[in-house]
């Protein structure tokens, strides 16, 4: 495309020597974007927006925060009570983390459904997974900073995971802690890293966008753009669409931050950290729950940690696990079902991560009861003595059904969920690539508009997605 002629002389002068304006014009203005993107494609820019919100609010919070075990809790409360608008900054930051994950999860699942990870966008996808990993690390460190009970015990549990590594595990943990327990040096280094990592994320986001702009956005049909008739310039079409989406999203964000600011957090984090008193249930933030469930569903610590790590690392290999030439799930009649089951499975895993593994879920009465209560129920319903009921419950591999009662142990449910999660990537997707017959993919994005003849002419150029 021809370089634009800028009206402003200063802009022209600068652009001649340093073509930033030409660059922006090329990448953010005329950047050709498929014209059929639906609202699921809003979440990339929303994620970028949330990153900026988090960096700005976080920067101001850091000016008031004290990273010391004796002062951290009270310094956060001071921000909440005495700093002008400090409560708002903190609630926006705290709930912003959750919103960031909501947006990124939708962004990821959109990629999974529409095959955005497939050639030629493999690197783009992998950079995205890297950003997600960095986000998880950053969010974990941020959660530690208020130095409440969940901060402290969450930090203890997560850092202890590294001790599962054979031979060098304990040394790594000592290194992470900067001592022999989670203490002041730990808090200090987590604060430093929490400050640093968002800027690393920002750098990877830039590379992510560079990779995106190489081939442009995927689209709901999952087919390549065939020429100018399939695309529209990014500005004003997608800038205005993203702005509208931003408004809707902000309403959602504002609701949480101003009207339910603590609903997504754990109440125990308003109790100052106490190394001598362990909370009854140590539960991570909601966005880690599926992975926590995978970790807990395997009794062996090292295997559990490996499974948890693998559940994310597997995404790096996704472009080669799913060999189906059709990108969009819309044209894959069987894939669709497995995809939605995966979404459901992640919700189940979340549920399992949230609740005590030894408890029983009774889906028909929508209850979650502990093992003792469940045994009592079984004894009552079957009219058998308590010890017999205990055996019955033990025998049934965690699943127990009797007249009017059906219960499954949370850890077993988590195991089933974990099996499906890995099966989806390692078995279902590779097999579907071979056995599924996709529906006919449209020849081009503009085909329905241009009519048969013209569309055929455009489609002859390249049609790898129909192979």
């Amino acid at each position, binding site marked *: 495309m021809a370089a634009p002629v800028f009206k402003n002389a200063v802009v022209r002068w600068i652009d001649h020597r340093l073509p930033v304006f030409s660059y922006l014009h090329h990448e953010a203005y005329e950047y050709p974007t498929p014209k059929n993107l639906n609202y699921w494609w809003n979440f990339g820019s929303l994620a970028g927006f949330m990153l900026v919100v988090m960096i700005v609010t976080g920067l101001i919070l850091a000016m008031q925060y004290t990273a010391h075990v004796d002062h951290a809790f009270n310094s956060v*409360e001071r921000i*909440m009570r005495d700093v002008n608008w400090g409560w708002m900054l903190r609630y926006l930051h705290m709930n912003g983390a959750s919103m960031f994950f909501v947006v990124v999860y939708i962004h990821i699942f959109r990629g999974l459904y529409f095959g955005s990870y497939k050639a030629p966008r493999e690197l783009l996808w992998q950079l995205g997974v890297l950003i997600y990993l960095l986000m998880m690390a950053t969010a974990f460190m941020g959660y530690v900073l208020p130095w409440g009970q969940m901060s402290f015990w969450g930090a203890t549990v997560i850092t202890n995971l590294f001790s599962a590594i054979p031979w060098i595990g304990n040394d790594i943990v000592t290194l992470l802690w900067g001592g022999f327990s989670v203490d002041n040096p730990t808090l200090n280094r987590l604060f430093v890293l929490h400050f640093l990592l968002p800027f690393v994320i920002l750098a990877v986001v830039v590379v992510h966008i560079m990779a995106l702009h190489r081939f442009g956005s995927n689209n709901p049909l999952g087919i390549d753009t065939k020429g100018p008739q399939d695309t529209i310039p990014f500005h004003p079409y997608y800038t*205005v669409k993203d*702005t*509208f989406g931003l*408004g809707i999203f902000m309403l959602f964000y*504002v609701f949480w931050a101003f009207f*339910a600011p603590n*609903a997504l957090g754990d109440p125990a984090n308003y109790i100052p950290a106490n190394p001598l008193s362990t909370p009854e249930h140590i539960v991570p933030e909601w966005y880690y729950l599926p992975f926590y469930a995978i970790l807990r569903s395997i009794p062996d610590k090292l295997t559990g940690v490996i499974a948890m790590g693998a559940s994310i690392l597997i995404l790096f290999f996704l472009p080669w696990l799913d060999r189906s030439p059709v990108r969009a799930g819309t044209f894959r009649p069987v894939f669709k079902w497995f995809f939605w089951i995966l979404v459901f499975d992640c919700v189940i895993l979340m*549920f399992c991560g949230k609740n005590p593994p030894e408890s029983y879920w009774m889906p028909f009465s929508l209850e979650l009861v502990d093992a003792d209560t469940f045994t009592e129920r079984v004894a009552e319903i079957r009219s058998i003595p308590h010890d017999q009921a205990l055996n019955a419950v033990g025998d049934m591999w965690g699943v127990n059904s009797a007249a009017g009662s059906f219960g499954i142990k949370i850890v077993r449910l988590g195991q089933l969920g974990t099996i499906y999660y890995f099966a989806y990537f390692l078995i279902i997707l590779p097999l579907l690539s071979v056995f599924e017959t996709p529906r006919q993919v449209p020849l081009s994005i503009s085909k329905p508009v241009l009519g048969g003849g013209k569309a055929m002419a455009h489609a002859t150029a390249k049609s790898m997605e129909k192979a």
Partner: protein
Amino acid sequence: MSARRIVLGLFTILTGIAALLIVLASPTPHATVKTQSWGFNGFFGSFDQAQLKRGFQIYKDVCSGCHSMSLMHYRDLERIGFSEDEVKSIAAEVQVQDGPNDAGDMYDRPGKPSDPFKAPFPNEQAARASNNGALPPDLTLIAKSRAGSGFTGYDGADYIYSLMTGYEETPPADFKLGANMHYNHAFKGHQIAMPPPLSDGAVTYADGTEATLDQEARDVATFLTWTAEGNLETRHKTGIKAILFLVIFTLLAYATKRRVWADVH
């Protein structure tokens, strides 16, 4: 719309609903927390100043004998309707250690509005020694730290109200109560070291309100919600403004979007 799409759509919706129901299924609680309706809840929720004053009176006359409130300052009381002079005299009721003075000595002086609420015990050990080994928790954030978890969880105020009204003189026949413990059905494990702090007529309200147990429990629960979340009213008002702004912003953005996209098929 083909039958296939309808089936798939229905499946998606049902899956969503099922997922929601699963997440909402919460552990059956061991203790009973009775949820109440509170004036400070909801989009326009705000505190009743007279109630906050009554709640403060309960804290001052009853709770503060054992419980500290380390993050509150006497000056904060001006925000619930005490005048500057009233706050000064409330603060002056306590003796605060200050110093060192020019001679290097610590000295006691009457409290000032800028002082934090005076703690009843100098340290944790002293607090435990006076309370049969139990530590009365700091009350500043109690309403936030004792709330039920999750979006569907109960308020901290519900918990405080339930705890205040949950004492039973005689525990169930098969219940083993420890020495110096009290039976309370709202407390986890049902035995609590704190003796029943409130009862009918436990305080005489300055504003003449009849001091029933229910009234006292409500007042102190509201006051403790205020100490934990003193910016609640500003937060609600700011949130409403933000929502109004965003609704207009979003409508304008939508109109602009429609117009810009009108020529794209």
